[in-house]
């Protein structure tokens, strides 16, 4: 039983390490910011998750005191990773995408961060000035 658990925990650690490395490599390799966003929101989630799960198992079976913090960390990472991704995507859309490059938001009119024919405030200001 101990043998089996040790193998399982080691396997989880190795899997976590591999996925963490792949996620970081994806950040370097993928061509533009939107695709780069995919690597850390997923690969890193499973990487961190399986390392924490290994820690949970180890403390649960081999240590005197069991530890539940890992469970909370996994929960909070799964809650916060999509929100981080969403905020990065929103700011990127806001700064570098035009309305006609995105699909239309049927059945509504506008995207929250991208409205049609958005003019730069500075351009409007210049127009008003002269």
């Amino acid at each position: 039983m101990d043998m089996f658990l040790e193998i399982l925990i080691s396997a989880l650690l190795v899997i976590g390490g591999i996925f963490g490395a792949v996620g970081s490599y994806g950040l370097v390799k993928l061509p533009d910011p939107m695709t780069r966003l995919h690597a850390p929101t997923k690969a890193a989630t499973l990487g961190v998750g399986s390392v924490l799960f290994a820690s949970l198992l180890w403390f649960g079976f081999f240590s005197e005191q069991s530890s539940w913090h890992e469970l909370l960390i996994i929960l909070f990472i799964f809650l916060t990773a999509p929100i981080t991704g969403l905020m990065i995507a929103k700011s990127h859309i806001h700064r570098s995408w035009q309305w006609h490059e995105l699909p239309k938001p049927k059945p509504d009119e506008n995207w929250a961060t991208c409205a049609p024919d958005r003019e730069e405030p500075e351009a409007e200001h210049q127009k008003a000035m002269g």
Partner: protein
Amino acid sequence: MIWRLFPHPLLSILLTLVWMLLVNRFAWGSLVFAVILATIIPILIAPYWPDRPRIRRPIKFLAYSALVVWDIIVANIQVARIVLFMPNRKLQPAWVNVPLELTAPEAIAVLGGTITLTPGTVTCDVSDEGRALLVHCLHAPDPDAVRDDIKSRYEARLKEIFE
């Protein structure tokens, strides 16, 4: 009266559980403090969150969570394969508009989070009236299939759970 004291009963239970897990060992003092926190925090945030999310089928919600965890594992393997073995010029990123049938904001938030955590898709924006999601796909030769997949696999289940 009981609703005024516990405006979000599920949140109160969750806060108690999280606090007990943070303390990491059982003690009656911590439980009392957890209950105090679980009473005060929902009352403080109730003005900003007037509606209560209604989970009609809690067991289905557990089944949904299991499905999502499984999909996260599959998603990671797929994304890892794309990152490692697919040359960048073969990559076909795409934007997809997902019209929503869900109306509860909590359900839409859960759907958005699920989309971000699962195969090759990231939720990027919501429309101004909250009836469509903008999703970015890492590699989607057929964007319509991705949309149908999201709608049948996740949204239909969430609709059963929340509405």
